[in-house]
């Protein structure tokens, strides 16, 4: 019956998100490394360059070493970047997603060392499955970057750069915190004889039983009642192995293995708790890359394969059920992908360097709700870096891509100009970019049949274009950037009623999203660093009918982040504040998610040798009313103690 539809559709959004896997890739290409060295220093003080694949794009680099002594998830690492929206279905171990510039999580690519990660069936990546301690840095590039990165990069790209062996040694870190949360990680690095290797592992556990407060009668009373989150526990193990071997003066082989497994409860929204629902996931990725140089040209050949599996237990459309009952079957899904890629980079005269990339592969999905499905993917890309007189650089790119039966072209261009070649204004830079690309429907959208949720094999890709422009100041002490962007989306996939009560994905929505991004970082005396970022977002539906002109849901118009940290030889610490403004919870601007203000702080000292002890507190105001997507509570005050050492 139609009246059921609204509740069911809401409940479908509650349905536990499926799991994701980690990926792995090989080392950066020679050409990329060359460009990285030449690229401008990005916004974070003393950070390496921005994305090598998208020079001159608006980007932020987050080095994980800047957060030593802090318990940081990948989502936490992204929080300092402008243009980023983070959403979580609870505390540690629960699904967290990222979206860039108002795009959905599906429309923002997440790469591990250059390899695209996907949720099950191609959906959004669950950041909670990615171990932050195994990463060296995170690069956030914003804009429609399909030409540079491939399909799906409509809001931008998050590049996770895993750690590499830098010297012989080993390290370990242990943290213990509130709500039964603990993390143990360790690594060992070996080098010698033209080879280097790194092995790292991370174990995470949490009971997730944090207290939260809610209004039971929001129409008449501001009073809150207290509850405790249940079935929000999580356990996860992750491992990373990187090995590289010099095969000759100009040739190197690199291999990367990444794997992880986890189990967590699916607690459901606080209004409809699902205490019997569980998710189990396993995933891994193996990749190898051979790279070399021939004269002024650089070449790379790379192959990788990835497998992910998820099993949901005690899960039904709206409520939970008893695992093992005939009416409560386990839902499993396995996704697999294999991919090969070759790249050749060479100079064209004195002012150009051209890269040609050809890639192809296959992806498969098999599950109780999808059946076995497969599709091929292939692309050819041409990327040019042109240096023009007057300190102008241009970076046009064009990618032709085939995903299943769908073919699309993704053009893009970025340009940067440093008006001053000498004098105090040398750090000043102007930049601009534009791109057009698409997101193919996921295999889930195409084939997932869960009774009330219908598949739609006739879905077309979503399309978007955007343009942005900005200014940067890259000084030794101060870095500042400001950028504005405008983007248009069409053929957006939206789950709509398919009478009488089922829902089906259709290409029906359109939107425009504009925004402003500011970021600044200052290196202060005594090893202090101050940084701040601000994002303004105006995301408006252009869909015909009563949604036209209303804001898109779950896009905060204002987001502010500020942080003061110190990394000294004996003492370290930080304090930070995060403000996320009230945002629409529905498609009609009539229900809002309240604004959230959060303060975190930490303090640590090197007590002996390389042993550091740190204490960290999050949500210092102990605001237990925070919630995120779909009425999932977030934790209040949490405390954690950390010990770490390197040998």
């Amino acid at each position, binding site marked *: 019956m139609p009246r059921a539809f609204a509740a069911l559709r809401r409940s479908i959004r509650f349905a536990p998100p499926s799991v994701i896997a980690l990926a792995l890739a090989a080392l950066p290409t020679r050409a990329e490394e060359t460009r990285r060295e030449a690229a401008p220093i990005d916004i974070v003080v003393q950070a390496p360059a921005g994305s090598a694949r998208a020079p001159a794009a608006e980007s932020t680099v987050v080095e994980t070493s800047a957060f030593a002594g802090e318990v940081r998830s990948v989502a936490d690492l992204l929080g300092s970047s402008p243009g980023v929206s983070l959403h979580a279905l609870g505390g540690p171990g629960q699904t967290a997603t990222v979206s860039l510039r108002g795009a959905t999580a599906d429309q923002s690519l997440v790469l591990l060392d250059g390899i695209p990660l996907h949720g099950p069936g191609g959906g959004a990546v669950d950041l909670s499955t990615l171990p932050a301690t195994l990463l060296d840095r995170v690069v956030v590039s914003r804009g429609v970057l399909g030409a540079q990165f491939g399909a799906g990069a409509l809001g931008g790209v998050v590049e996770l750069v895993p750690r590499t062996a830098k010297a012989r040694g080993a390290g370990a870190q242990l943290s213990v915190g509130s709500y039964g949360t603990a993390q143990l990680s360790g690594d060992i690095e070996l080098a010698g004889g033209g080879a280097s290797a790194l092995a790292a592992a991370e174990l995470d556990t949490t009971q997730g039983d944090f207290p939260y407060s809610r209004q039971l009668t929001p129409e008449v009373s501001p009073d809150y009642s207290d509850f405790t989150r249940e079935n929000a526990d999580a356990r996860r193990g992750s491992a990373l192995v990187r090995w590289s071997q010099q095969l000759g003066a100009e040739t190197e082989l690199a291999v990367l293995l990444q794997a992880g497994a986890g189990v967590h409860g699916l607690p459901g929204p606080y209004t409809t708790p699902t205490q019997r629902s569980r998710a189990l996931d396993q995933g891994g990725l193996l990749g190898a890359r051979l790279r070399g140089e021939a004269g002024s040209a650089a070449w790379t050949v790379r192959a990788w394969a990835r497998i992910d599996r998820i099993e949901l237990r005690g899960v039904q459309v709206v409520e939970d059920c008893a695992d093992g009952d005939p*009416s409560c079957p386990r839902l499993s899904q396995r996704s697999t992908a294999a991919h090969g890629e070759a790249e050749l980079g060479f100079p064209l005269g004195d002012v150009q360097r051209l890269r040609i990339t050809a890639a192809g592969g296959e992806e498969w999905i098999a599950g109780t709700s999808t059946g076995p499905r497969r599709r091929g993917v292939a692309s050819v890309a041409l990327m040019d870096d042109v240096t023009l007189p007057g300190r102008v650089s241009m970076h046009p790119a064009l990618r032709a891509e085939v995903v299943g039966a769908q073919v699309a072209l993704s053009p893009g261009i970025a340009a940067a100009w440093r008006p001053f070649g000498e004098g105090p204004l040398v750090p000043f830079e102007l930049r601009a970019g534009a791109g057009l690309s698409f997101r193919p429907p996921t295999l889930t959208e195409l084939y997932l049949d869960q009774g009330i949720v219908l598949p739609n094999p006739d879905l077309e890709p979503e399309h978007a274009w955007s343009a942005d422009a900005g200014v940067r100041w890259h000084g030794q002490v101060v870095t500042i950037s400001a950028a504005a962007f405008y983007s248009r989306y069409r053929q957006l996939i939206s789950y709509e009623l398919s009478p009488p009560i089922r829902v089906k994905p259709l290409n029906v929505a359109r939107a425009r999203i504009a925004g402003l991004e500011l970021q600044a970082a200052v290196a202060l005396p005594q090893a202090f660093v101050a940084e701040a970022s601000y994002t303004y977002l105006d995301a408006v539906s252009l869909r015909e009918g009563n949604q036209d002109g209303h804001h898109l849901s779950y896009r905060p118009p204002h987001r502010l982040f500020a942080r003061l940290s110190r990394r000294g030889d004996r003492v370290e610490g930080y304090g930070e504040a995060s403000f996320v403004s009230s945002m629409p919870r529905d498609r009609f601007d009539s229900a809002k998610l309240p604004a959230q203000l959060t303060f975190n702080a930490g303090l640590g000292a090197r007590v002996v040798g390389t042993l550091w002890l740190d204490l960290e507190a999050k949500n210092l105001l102990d605001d237990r009313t925070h919630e995120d997507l779909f009425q999932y509570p977030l934790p209040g005050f949490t405390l954690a103690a950390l010990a770490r050492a390197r040998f």
Partner: protein
Amino acid sequence: MQRTAVLLFALAAACGRAEHTPPLNKIPLPKGAALKPYDAANPGTPHPYNMAQLGGKVFVALGNLRPDYSVGGPGFLVGVVPSQGFTDVIDLGGADGRQCQNSGAVRTDGTMLYVTCSGDFSSSSGRALVEVDPATANAPRTRTLAGDEAPSGLAVTANKVWMGLSSSASLISVDRTTFALADGADAAHQAIQLECPHKIYAYVADLLTVGSDLYALCSSDQAGVIFRLDPSTGAVRGQADIGATPTALAATPDGRLAVVCSGDNTLWLATPGQGGTLTARLAHTYASGTSTLQGVRSSDRYIFTTASGSNTVQKIDVSVSPAKVVAEATTGAGTAPWDLAPLSDDEVVVSDSLSDDLTGLTAVDFKTAPQ
């Protein structure tokens, strides 16, 4: 004399208690074998939906659905004495148990009850209109509907029982005398098509007869519209735009129409005018913590609404402008309140679509708004 006075007082008090016996806080509904599951290993649960009041009882339609929303058995109508529990369990499935599945909407003409059966969403079976005689707790007449005619709301008029369809903005009717399909029967008697702007879908969410008018709610991907219709012919007399995804309507104590819209979390009031006109205005936008409005009903003085996403019931005074929520109650996490039946200005019975019982709410359960 004194003893007589005491007796009279006691008698009056007893009578008073009989008239105002409060509803049970939780009213269990039939479960398990009582719902005649098609597969004993995979039974349905009640999934109580809409309710109607008749003869001191509350009648609630049971979807009898499994957790995946497939049908677990025939549709049921259950009669409940709010202060005691259920008294009648009426199987609507007919001889084969499959003529009526997923019963949802129920209305009464004051004597008989009429129930729509939306059927199995994954097939075309079980769509029907069933007439129920509460006096005998039997279903004497069933009108089977076509597979593409899944009914949603219904309204009873003098000559017809009107049903809205969930697959299109269409109305069909059944003749009350013959119980044969009237509007929508054939090419010569086509279904009434409501002009409801849409590109993807449109459906009739609810119907109601008030006086000499039939009202219908249309919900679509582009609009929400309330229509005022001729109850005999279905001809449109007037219409007005309302909020997004209207779900239910009720006559207010002062003769207007109250409509809850789950899409934009709003309450609208429609006023019928002379010559068949109809105007509507936004009366209240609910708090952000309130979500997924489902039902609306009237008592003598107030209207009551249900919100299945926030597990709340609102008591609203629509005699003031804007309308004011004067009290609110919670039915508890995981209940998903759907419809309600006001027993008085302070007491309601609520159908909890997820927890599969009814909740009785009294004045002590309602938290009043600050003045």
